Every structure is written in structure tokens, then in C-alpha cells.
């Protein structure tokens, strides 16, 4: 009666592993393979046409790819940093309030409920040059009498997308950092005050080290999820007009579905995956370092 039995932990993890293997792992292996072929959706037989690293070389040489890549990294860097700073500021402000703080926290969660797609649509409406809230307002107060082409001009469109992205995600930072602020023990802050710190100094030397892990958690969660920006961009400009707001993800989507060049799109997809994983690992490392600093241990 010595029947082999799976260890309990493995049996418990098995469903998760199976689902993730089926939906994520297998397709990723397939896409890795197809990225070395000239696979086109319209011609299934091309799946067996091995062309080596041609797609990667093509991407490496493509100006479109690099400008989309650069723009993506730029957008992420600016957005994550600004969101972090604004979220920190917002959390500190809300933390000061004693009366009605619950209501403020609830309002703060508002953007989190919005689907990124909805955020995109909402800001597409708001930044619409003809009927949008922003232009209407600017024209009504006489700030400008022409319709500003928010979503048509390359730089303005980039700005508009940034605003939308920040609107949707700043509160994630604010809420996590606020949770961090709640967890900061009161005594060391008071000790710092008595030790002669100005409010800024006690923030810098005491509060900040305490909330650093929370900031990195927020960054890590966000970087797991950066591709949310795809939905926003897709609906606001879809990378256009004329590729002026093209991000890696919109470029991949268009190459794969519109141009049907699946092999090439998958090659670029892999690059975007490594980009995202890179960001995530970076922030998790930082998180562990910040925890060790506070003696929390992993």
C-alpha cells in the first residue's frame, strides 16, 4: 500500500500552475517559437518557416520600433515618478486631516474603479478639441480662442495621455502610501520633533524611511500593471495620429492584428515582456532593501 502521494503544498498549487501554464506559459512558448518564423496570420503555413533571429534584427533596425520603445520608457519613467510624488503628496495631505478623512479616502479610490479603457475614453472626451471640457473651459475664460488640438499634436497628445495615465493611477500610490503612513509609529516622529527637527527634516529622516517599503510595493504593483496604459492609449489616440504617440504596445497590436505579421509582433512582444519584468524585479529588489533597512526582514 505504498501509493505515491503528491506533497500537500504541490497538490494545492497544482490548479494555479495548470491554469497559468495553459494561459500564459504555453502561449509564451509558442510566441517565442513564432518570433523566429515569418508567421503571418493570413498564411498559416508560414508558421514553419524558420528565419532565425531575423525578426529581432528587423526590430533592432527599425526606427519605428525604437521610437516606440523610447516613448514607452519615457512615458513609464515620467508617469511612475510623477504618480509616486503626487501620490505621496496627496497621502500626506489626507493624513493631516482628522475630520472627514474616511470620506476623503473613499473619494481617493474613485479612479481605481475606472477601467483603463474608460479612463481613456473619458479623457478622449475631455481633451476633445471640439466638445471637450478643457477647450470649452479655456475658451470660456478667454484663455484661448482657438481649439487646441490636444490629441492631434504629437507633444500635446503625449501630455494628454500622461494626464490620463496619472489620473487613473496616482490614487494607487496615494492609498498605499497612506496605509504606510498609518503604520508609522507615532513615537519616533515625536522624538524627532523634540530632537529639533523641522517638519521637513522629520519627514525626510524618519517618515520617509518608514514608508519607503510601501512606496516600492506601490511601484512594484504598478509595474506589474503598466500595460494598463495600452488601453488608455489605444482608445485615446491608438498610437496616432501618424505614429506620433505610438507606444510599444500599440505598435505590437497593430503589427500583429492589422498587418497580420505575427512573428514580427511576437518578437517585439518579447522585448516588451522583458521590459515589464525588468521594472518589476528592480522594484522588488528595492523593496527588500528598504525592508532590511528598517530591520523588518523578509
Amino acid at each position, binding site marked *: 500500500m505504498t501509493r505515491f502521494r503528491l506533497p500537500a503544498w504541490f497538490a494545492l498549487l497544482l490548479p494555479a500552475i495548470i491554469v497559468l501554464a495553459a494561459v500564459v506559459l504555453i502561449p509564451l512558448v509558442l510566441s517565442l517559437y513564432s518570433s523566429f518564423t515569418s508567421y503571418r496570420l493570413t498564411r498559416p503555413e508560414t508558421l514553419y518557416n524558420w528565419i532565425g533571429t531575423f525578426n529581432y534584427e528587423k526590430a533592432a533596425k527599425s526606427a519605428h520600433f525604437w521610437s516606440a520603445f523610447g516613448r514607452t520608457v519615457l512615458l513609464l519613467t515620467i508617469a511612475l515618478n510623477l504618480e509616486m510624488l503626487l501620490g505621496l503628496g496627496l497621502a500626506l495631505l489626507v493624513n493631516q486631516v482628522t475630520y472627514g478623512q474616511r470620506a476623503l479616502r473613499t473619494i481617493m479610490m474613485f479612479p481605481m474603479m475606472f477601467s483603463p479603457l474608460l479612463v481613456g475614453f473619458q479623457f478622449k472626451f475631455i481633451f476633445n478639441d471640439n466638445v471637450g471640457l478643457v477647450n470649452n473651459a479655456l475658451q470660456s475664460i478667454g484663455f484661448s480662442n482657438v481649439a487646441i488640438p490636444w490629441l492631434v499634436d504629437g507633444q500635446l497628445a503625449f501630455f494628454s495621455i500622461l494626464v490620463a495615465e496619472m489620473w487613473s493611477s496616482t490614487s494607487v500610490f496615494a492609498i498605499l502610501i497612506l496605509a504606510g503612513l498609518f503604520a508609522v509609529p507615532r513615537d*519616533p516622529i*515625536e*522624538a524627532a*520633533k*523634540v*530632537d*529639533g527637527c523641522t517638519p521637513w*527634516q522629520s519627514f525626510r529622516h524618519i517618515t520617509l524611511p518608514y514608508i519607503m517599503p510601501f512606496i516600492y510595493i506601490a511601484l512594484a504593483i504598478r509595474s506589474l500593471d503598466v500595460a494598463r496604459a495600452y488601453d488608455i492609449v489605444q482608445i485615446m489616440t491608438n498610437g496616432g495620429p501618424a505614429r506620433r504617440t505610438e507606444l510599444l504596445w500599440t505598435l505590437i497590436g497593430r503589427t500583429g492584428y492589422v498587418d497580420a505579421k505575427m512573428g514580427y509582433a511576437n518578437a517585439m512582444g518579447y522585448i516588451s515582456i522583458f521590459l515589464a519584468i525588468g521594472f518589476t524585479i528592480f522594484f522588488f529588489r528595492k523593496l527588500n532593501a528598504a525592508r532590511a533597512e*528598517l530591520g523588518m526582514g523578509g
Partner: protein
Amino acid sequence: MAQVNLRNVVKRFGPLQVVHGVDLDINDNEFVVLVGPSGCGKSTTLRMIAGLEAISEGEIAIGDRVVNDLPPRHRNISMVFQNYALYPHMSVRENLGFSLEIAKKPKAEIDKAVDEAAEILSLTDYMDRKPGALSGGQRQRVAMGRAIVRHPDVFLFDEPLSNLDAKLRTQMRTEIKKLHQKVNSTIVYVTHDQVEAMTLADRIVIMRDGYIEQVGTPLEVFEAPANTFVATFIGSPPMNLLTGRVAADMISLEGGLKVAVPDQYRANVSEGQDVVLGFRADNLMPVGHAMPMEGAFAELEMTVNLSEPLGTETLLFTSIADKEIQAKMLNPRPVASGEKLSFQLDLTRCHLFDAETQNSLRSN
């Protein structure tokens, strides 16, 4: 010069008033202990002196300077917190030097002050550890070291020993006393432990429900409690209290007992007045057990319910009219429960309080 003066200081949290017009003058170099049960407003008062809590009314001055609206950093104080409040991400050395670092003192001066403090508190071996790697007593010493490096005008202690075990507490108590002699500064110390208050203080401030009940030296508050609250709060075991009525220079107590009105109170009581008679266990002893030779005594016959031998003395629990009364016996011998003994009450050491106001009827 760093005296601390509180004038009619009031603290309200919303509609709730927790400190009711406290007046207190603390002299330069004096060690003052605020003591009282939890929720009596002692910590709030300390935090108002520190500037961590805004005052709702009144005036606080530190060394001739009114500090009502000044943030803590402008008050030249330092504070030791109940939970030590060490900075977890800094080493012991960094913790000690932090305030001087903030004040942009030259490096050499910081090092000197830090080493000096470490020396006084014997922390030299742990300078590069982080607080997480220290024991409770060591953390406590770091917290004190952090307070002394600044040479502040006033030291504030907020229940600094309550997180330590009994043995360490006694040890640190001695160290704090020594520290005061060494650094010679004004100290305001908050505790709920009356033993700490008695052993440390130059003067004790006893608080209850946001009012000061009595201010005095440890001996004064022990020997001459201003009211029944102080009488029961200070001293261990707490003072025995019995209610009674004055009739013809005698007090008829609950349970039908009668004792003479102690001489020192005779002038202050009137016929028919309701009073509370207070006496400590030390002044109620079985006949023949080390009472002073002269004095005025009342004799009481009582049954011992329980005895607690403490070594050099034995605590006896008896009762009068269902009220528990504690007595003491020196040169111990076994006492059986239910044994009837004859006790002597030393009337010269008795206290008399007005039953209505609960205030002492002592004349002075």
C-alpha cells in the same frame, strides 16, 4: 535657568476636557514626578510642556520664555518615550547623534557628546548595532542617551520604565536618579507607579481626572495626604479608611466601634460631623508588636482572615463592618485564619478627612 511654569493650563479634545486649569511651578534643577491613575491627564500635561500637544487655554513658560505656540524644536527640551521611540533604521551611534546632526553641529563636537553619553550609560560596546538588536534595558539606555547628548534645559520622561521587567525597572530607576545628579537639569517625569514617584522625586504632583490633587515632597504626600484619594494612592498597602460620625470627642465608626478623636484634629471637627478615619497598616498592630511606648492608642478586637508573611513583617487582613482592613505585624509568627487578636491603633498617626469633601481636616 530652566524653571517650568504652568498657568491655568487647559486641554480639550473636541468637547472633552482632559486637563482642567493646571497651575504648577517647577524649579530649576528640580526632579518633579507627575503621578496618577491612567487617564488623569499627566501624560497630556507632559506632552503640552513638550509642545507635542497644543494647549487649549493658559500659558506654559520654560525658563522665563512663554512657549505656548512654539514647536518642540524651539523649546530646548528632550524627551524619553515610553516605547523608547528609537529610530529603527539608525545605529545606536546615529540615534545618539541625530539631534546634534540636525542642529548642524561640527563633527568633532558630535562625536565628543555621543561618546560622553555612551560612557555615562555604558553603551560603548553597542554603538554600531541597530535598535532591533538590543535588549529592552539597552534600548532604554539609548533613549536616555539620546536625551542627554543635547544638554537640554528640561528633560521630559513619559513612563520610561513601564515596558521593563521588575528587576530592570529597579535598576534603571537608580540609574535615572544617578543621572539627575550628574547632569543637573530640570526633570519632569510621568509615571503611574507611586513607588517610582516616591523614590525619584524631589516633589510629587498627584493628578486625578485632569486636576492636581496635591503637590509636595514624597514625605509630605505620604505623611500628610491632602485628601482620601492621595491617601489611598500613595503608599503600599493603601491607607485603610473607615467612615464615622463625631459625637462627644469620640468617633463612632461603622460596625459599632468607637475611637477617640485624635488630639491633632480635635479643634477642627464639630459635633455630629461625618468624617473618614484613615490609618496605615503600619499603625495598626497586634498588642505587644513593636509599638512606640508613648502615644494615644485605641484598642480593637478583630479576627484575622488571611495573613501574608513578607519576611521581615507579616501583613494581616482583617475586616470591620465587611470592609477589609490591613494591619502589620513585625517579628513574624504564624497566624491562623480565624484567629482573634487584639490590635492597637496609633491615634497620633491617624488621619481625619471630611466625609463630604474628602479633604483632610488637618490644620495648617
